[in-house]
């Protein structure tokens, strides 16, 4: 299959390892990966902040980059960006009265998948250890992220994949379905409330005794990781694509002080 990678702006600029891991996984499964070079961003920051007019060129650019490219399906390692492509792009096109753009945006949205959705529903991955060679001997906890959970209805696809990684010690995160408090510009406009939400999320992450908190959205992970770092915690964050891409021969590089898990729950 020919798979177009939508790296998303934050992963492209700040977390290239996540995009590289996504490419690795797909190539390991024997697929061709293409990177439509005109791509930049899904525009959700603009839409969610109310700057619809400013979102139009961003959305138009995404649609142009993807509807001219040659691929079967597109994938992004981010639930919120996929939700934006699927739900917000047609709406933005409608808001500026561009019916043609709306139709093209809807078509691109229909071909765009979040990574776990693509792996489980389209590529039939049920056992990451066996099919991808995923090996990650660490105690990990998992934050599901709001948009993946509620807008895309990813259900347990991500945690199911994580559970099948060899050597992993997956700890349940208390109150996992609670928002981490990022919310794009919410974290700046309502910095106090956002910080209070983050504090609780960080405390729950710490309570699991995990070395790492993983998830499917780089922005939430940046937020949670940024809070943990400020609090001087040794727990860090890592995108689930990097855990899935990690193998015995090529282990994911993990920053921070990471203890190798015994495979048993740490108390």
């Amino acid at each position, binding site marked *: 299959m*020919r798979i177009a990678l939508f*790296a998303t*702006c934050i992963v*492209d*600029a*700040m*977390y*290239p390892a996540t*995009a*590289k891991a996504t*490419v690795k996984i797909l190539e390991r499964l024997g697929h061709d*990966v*293409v*990177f439509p070079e*005109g791509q*930049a*961003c899904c525009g959700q920051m*603009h*839409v*969610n*902040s*109310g*700057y*619809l*007019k*400013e*979102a139009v*060129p*961003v959305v*138009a*650019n995404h649609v142009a980059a993807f509807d001219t490219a*040659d691929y079967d399906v597109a994938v992004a390692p981010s639930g919120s960006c996929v939700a934006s492509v699927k739900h917000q792009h047609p709406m933005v096109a409608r*808001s500026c009265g561009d019916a043609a753009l709306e139709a093209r945006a809807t078509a691109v949205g229909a071909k765009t998948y979040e990574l776990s959705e693509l792996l489980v529903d389209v590529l039939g991955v049920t056992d990451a250890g066996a099919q991808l060679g995923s090996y990650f001997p660490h105690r990990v906890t998992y934050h599901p992220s*709001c*948009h993946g959970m*509620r807008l895309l209805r990813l259900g347990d696809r991500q945690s199911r994949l994580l559970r099948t990684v060899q050597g992993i010690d997956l700890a349940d995160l208390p109150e996992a*379905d609670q*928002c981490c408090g990022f*919310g*794009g*510009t*919410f*974290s*700046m*406009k*309502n*910095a*106090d*409330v*956002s*910080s*209070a*939400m983050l504090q609780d999320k960080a405390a729950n992450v710490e309570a699991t005794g995990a070395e790492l908190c993983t998830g499917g959205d780089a922005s939430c992970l*940046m*937020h949670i*990781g*940024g*809070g943990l*770092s*400020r609090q001087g915690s040794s727990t860090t964050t890592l995108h689930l694509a990097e855990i899935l891409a990690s193998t015995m021969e090529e282990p994911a590089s993990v920053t921070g002080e990471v203890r190798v898990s015994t495979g048993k729950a740490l108390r």
Partner: protein
Amino acid sequence: MTTFLGMPALPAFGSGNLFAGESFPKAAHRELGNAQLRANLGHATHTIRDKRQAVVSELPDWEQLRDAGSAIKESVMARLPELLEEFEKNFTARGGVIHWARDAREANEIVAGLVRATGETEVVKVKSMATQEIGLNEYLEEQGIEAFETDLAELIVQLDHDKPSHILVPAIHKNRTEIRDIFLREMPGADPALTNDPPVLAMAAREHLRRKFLTAKVAVSGANFALADSGTLAVVESEGNGRMCLTLPETLITVMGIEKLLPTWQDLEVFMQLLPRSSTGERMNPYTSLWTGVTEGDGPQNVHLVLLDNGRSAALADEMGRSALHCIRCSACMNVCPVYERTGGHAYGSTYPGPIGAILSPLLTGIQAEENSSLPYASSLCGACYDACPVKINIPDILVHLRSVDVDSKRGTKKVPSQMDVGMKAASWALSSGKHLGLVEKGLPLGRLAAGRDKKIKKLPGIAGGWTQSRDIPAPPAQSFRDWWAKEHKSPAPSRDEKETQ
């Protein structure tokens, strides 16, 4: 909608207790500082959330019920003028009197006039959001009429001279020791040996209220539903105080928003399943009172209904926002909202707090009302409210819509554009082409410099400083993905055309 119920061509915005006194971030900052409040709220919302989840998951057709509730409400909004007329005809035919109120002031004047006509100076009240919205108690007090709240939580708030913090559990922000202290201080004749045991507190309130019920000649209520086909009003409650107010006095005055209508009795069935489960987490609420006009020799002999617009026509005129009027005030959205859970209701200023308040208040007053323009931003858009709402109001989408109305209404009005305006413009340029983004990414090494030796950025200027208030930013990587792909990705997949020619 040019002539709507005799209202002016342009629907007027609402007045009364719909305005935040200060911006949400400012009010939230203050409320977040109250550790006791946060603990009380966290405990209460978690308890009720779990209860709701349990009773909702008992119903295999919950999703269909939500769809049905949403569809009925949508059809009500589509033919509201017609249904209101049908209701008026039936209500009047059964001996009730209808009064139309454009805004809070008109509604207050109507109620005060009706009470004055009875010669009474005291009224008992059933908990009502509509009368909170118009500030009826305060208005009546100015007119020399005392209003006694009879709902336990509402009574606590009233005795404490406080404002409700939640639409269903107005005293959610108080714990039982605080409540005992309020009773001892404010309740005439309270037993000095009162303990903070909930049944003891409930009994004290009951004794206090009994005296009022047995003497009151006038009651004021709200209504949860109005059935157009029979002219019937309904109140749903759990303590029985409502039932007392609705049956004992001679005069009953109900104040109700025009959106509360349901077409038929059959429709009520759907909502009687949705409402109690969503609000109190019960399968069924203990008391549901329905009354249709006047019955000679039984119950109130003078029955009035004040139909309140107060910005509802304006909200109805907003195509994207109008579904906010579907709200049945169950409070499920606030109980699951992470923002509400931490700030409480007072941070929202208006009578309507939480996610629904963040959209309903600005819809009723107009986003141009500066006091309410920060409300639609009081959400991380996590979507928990939309999932919980029994009538499926897409609160996150309406929040985003109102943000865009806010941004657009301010375009070109500012002498100096805000940091946000400038930032969004710049980001729009940077993110509207792969080339532009690639250029910006060339600046990433600068970020590495700013990060210093521990590879963390700890302080950013301007509005971005909100982020670094409690979070670090990792140093950017040496190379963007885009750059890596162009320079180092081993074998870029050839296009299909190239493949075919190979």
